[in-house]
């Protein structure tokens, strides 16, 4: 575990520095990358433009099961406890499994602590739970800046946290992927889990946003 100065604790549970090769492309992933390479070389597409198109479908990719996990945790204290102690099993109990969804850990935001997840440079992002990562999230500068100055990065996303709330930065790894359980918004007591899930944004589950306020349902 590595400690960083400033108000961000960086929890580094991984062996980034070891010779640990765990990346794997499926046949389709590799073929799509090959097409992208050749079309880019021929000047027919621009990967940045492709990212922009893909990003417009950000909420349409993957089942985004994470929002339902969060809503259940807000509604059922027993499920929240289970999620806290064994997120993999708790999430799996909802039928959400798969290569990308395995070995999850849930980190809960509290009035004292805000959690932020970094590292999507390789294939470890649990998109089946969280949905597609935002384009900027894959950029190496985001990752390093989030570790050094998480408050500054959150500020840029329009997330201003209370002065005393500390920020913990979690580095997703191949072995362990994180989901942030945002704080339940005020004034949502009467809402059922489906309505609550609508308040849970992708960004709130990686910690670059908060859950939407009550009454802001799409």
């Amino acid at each position, binding site marked *: 575990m590595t400690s960083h100065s400033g108000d961000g604790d960086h929890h580094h549970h*991984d*062996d*980034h520095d*070891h*010779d*640990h*090769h*765990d*990346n*794997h*492309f*499926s*046949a*389709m*992933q*590799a*073929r*799509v*990358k*090959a*097409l*992208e*390479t*050749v*079309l880019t070389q*021929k000047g*027919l*597409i*621009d990967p940045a*433009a*492709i990212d922009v*198109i*893909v990003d417009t*479908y950000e909420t*349409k*990719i*993957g*089942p985004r099961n994470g929002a339902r996990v969060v809503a259940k945790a807000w509604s059922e204290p027993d499920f929240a406890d289970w999620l806290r102690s064994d997120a993999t099993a708790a999430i799996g109990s909802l039928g959400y499994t798969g290569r990308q969804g395995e070995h999850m850990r849930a980190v809960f935001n509290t009035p004292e602590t805000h959690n932020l997840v970094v*590292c999507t*440079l*390789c*294939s*470890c992002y649990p*998109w089946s739970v969280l949905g*597609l990562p935002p384009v900027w999230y*894959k950029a*190496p500068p985001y990752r390093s800046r989030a570790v050094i100055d998480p408050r500054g990065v959150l500020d840029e996303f329009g997330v201003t946290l209370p002065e005393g709330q500390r920020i913990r930065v979690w*580095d997703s*790894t*191949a072995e362990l992927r994180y989901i942030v359980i945002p704080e339940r918004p005020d004034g949502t007591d009467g809402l059922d889990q489906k309505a609550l899930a609508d308040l849970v944004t992708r960004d709130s589950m990686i910690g670059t946003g908060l859950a939407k306020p009550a009454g802001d349902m799409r």
Partner: protein
Amino acid sequence: MNAFEPTLSGSPGLPKSNEGDPVFSEPWQAEAFAMTVRLHEKGVFSWSEWAEALSHELYKPGRRADASDYFDCWVAALSRLVTELSITSPDHLDQLTQSWHRAAAATPHGQPIRLENDPQR
């Protein structure tokens, strides 16, 4: 209505949400979709050429009964079309695919997977 309507209507059987947007179950599917949209916008192929290439793959025997291989067909159609249009050769595309496999396997966790990481390049 959305900006990709021509591609949508030119792609029979595309899984769509109630709002009419395409539904992807994995990120590479959206990437393949987005590349097709761009190539069509650039005039690399026409609406009917795309529809024909896709249909050809979709009606091949041996499809999965649940149609979960829809985007596998999509990628096969796109691969075929770009080789038929002599943008690249099937061999080159296969070599690049193998190269990406090796690049991914050789990339340590936490670093971007780049084609240069293929030890055989």
